[in-house]
């Protein structure tokens, strides 16, 4: 009896060591033999809101797509300690709104319901429970009043929230968002960032690519600085040193400590990344 009990005890203990919500081990992505991203390893915990920053071509979107299994990569991706299955509801994706076919005739609710399609399986139609999840997701992003609207009529920020709702309808633990605050005005950026914070407070892990470098320490728990490899990973105030910024963005950016905030500035006219310098540079659509 004693032996059985101790075995049971061991079995009980194993799962109680909490695995990170998302763990990436030695991830390498190549395009035509050319490495896009080399040997990236990091862990993300539940309730963390993580910003992925880096210049154009740094591999931000590639990292997200590799985690989703959309592009081939080597290395390991573990979600809650488990290797990611192909059709997994645990990881949801919010694409750049510019990457979507907005001519498609659909209502907001139709689009959110699409978040359920992957789990429904072949030949199954959405059921009442799926509609309820879709409606609940719309409420979470405060878009319930738009359920019957046509998606073509929405503003950029509303489109972004609908896509967030579609991802939430999937009931994921990890959310991967590609440039969610690009192409929307500053008040809308604030709304979306608050929404992301609410979602992380509710226990979800969020990875967010962004090229808006303002108030990073205010919005994110941790930053992943990428430039074809992992330059630094940690809390913004701890890692955003001159060396890290230079290694990530090159010398076109300088770090200006000011009023306990980190401001990244671009001091070259040929600075291609266009980091957010002012509050009004972000209204241009991609």
């Amino acid at each position, binding site marked *: 009896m004693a032996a059985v009990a101790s075995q049971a005890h061991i079995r009980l203990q194993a799962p109680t060591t909490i695995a990170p919500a998302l763990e990436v081990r030695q991830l390498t992505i190549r395009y035509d033999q050319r490495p896009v991203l080399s040997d990236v390893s990091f862990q993300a915990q539940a309730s963390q809101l993580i910003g992925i920053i880096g210049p154009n071509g740094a591999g931000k979107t590639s990292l997200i*797509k590799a985690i*989703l*299994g*959309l592009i081939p990569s080597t290395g390991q991706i573990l979600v809650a300690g488990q290797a990611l299955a*192909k*059709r*997994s509801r645990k*990881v*949801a*994706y919010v*694409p750049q709104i510019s*990457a*979507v*076919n*907005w*001519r*498609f*005739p*659909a*209502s907001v609710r*139709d*689009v959110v319901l*699409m*978040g359920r*399609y*992957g*789990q*429904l399986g*072949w*030949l199954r*139609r*959405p059921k009442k429970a799926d509609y309820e999840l879709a409606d609940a997701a719309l409420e979470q992003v405060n878009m319930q009043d738009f359920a019957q609207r*046509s998606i*073509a009529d929405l503003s950029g920020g509303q489109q972004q929230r609908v896509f967030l709702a*579609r991802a939430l309808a*999937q009931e994921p633990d990890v959310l991967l968002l590609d440039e969610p605050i690009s192409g929307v005005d500053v008040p809308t950026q604030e709304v979306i960032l608050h929404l992301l914070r609410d979602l992380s407070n509710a226990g979800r892990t969020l990875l967010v690519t962004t090229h808006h470098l303002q108030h990073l320490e205010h919005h994110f728990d941790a930053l992943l600085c990428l430039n074809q490899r992992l330059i630094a990973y940690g809390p913004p105030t701890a890692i955003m040193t001159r060396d890290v910024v230079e290694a990530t963005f090159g010398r076109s950016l300088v770090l200006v400590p000011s009023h306990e905030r980190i401001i990244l500035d671009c001091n070259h006219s040929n600075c291609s990344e266009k980091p957010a310098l002012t509050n009004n540079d972000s209204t241009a*659509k991609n």
Partner: protein
Amino acid sequence: MKCTDLWNCVVVPLQFAPTQRALLAAILIGILCSVVGAFVVLQDLSFIGDALAHASFPGVVIASMLGWNIALGGAIFGVATALGVGWITRRSKVSLDTAIGVLFAGMFALGIFLLSRNRGYNKELFGLLLGDILAVRQSDLWTIVGVGGLILVVIAALYKELVLMTFDRTAAAAQGLPVGFLHYLLLSIMAITVVVAIQSIGIVLVVAMLVTPAATASLVVRRFWSMIVWGSLQGLVAATIGIYVSAYIDGVPTGSSIVLAHTAIFIIVLVLAPRKNALAGLFQRKVAD
């Protein structure tokens, strides 16, 4: 053909078995093409549809020379070309448009080359270029019903997957859908639809059967399923108008009268569309980019 009053005018052409078959075939093809066309238009595959029609030409010629089923010969070449286009774009840096251009012109040239060796078949093959729906036999009608029905069943069964892939391919892949398979499936469905329609509408005009009803619907509707319903109704109406026009005006090929009916409906809706429509939005968006 002559008739006395309106009812008589409607009934007279239907006294002839070939016209009955033609009307039925045109309606079935019109509905099938419109349903498939909704996916074609929203995925910007119109050019591929046209290319497939032309690419099926050598298959049609060979089948005709050997006395095989013409639709089958066309389907083999159409599907092979569709898969070839997908294969080229996956294996090389050649863009989709370019790969289509290469294969589509090459296949059509092969068809003309083969055709030129067999002048005796010219009349039948000329019919294939422009369509001859009054030549539809009972067995052709069964082919249309069988193949068309199968395609509609496949679309109904995979409706949500096809819709998600059409709307947002990356998200479909992220949800674990086999987007590569669905893409090839849709291309194959399009190829088969085109080939089934070729005998009635003709290689040159068949793309309009796919594109025009869906394009007209996109001016008005706001939901995908209503696009399919609108397209099917328009397919039915245009087929009926087209058959009657070619029944009463001597020598008008049915393919041209059906396509003209579609085009007329499109223009009328375009002019009367009450609000800023989806298509206008598309052009504005493109300009803004």
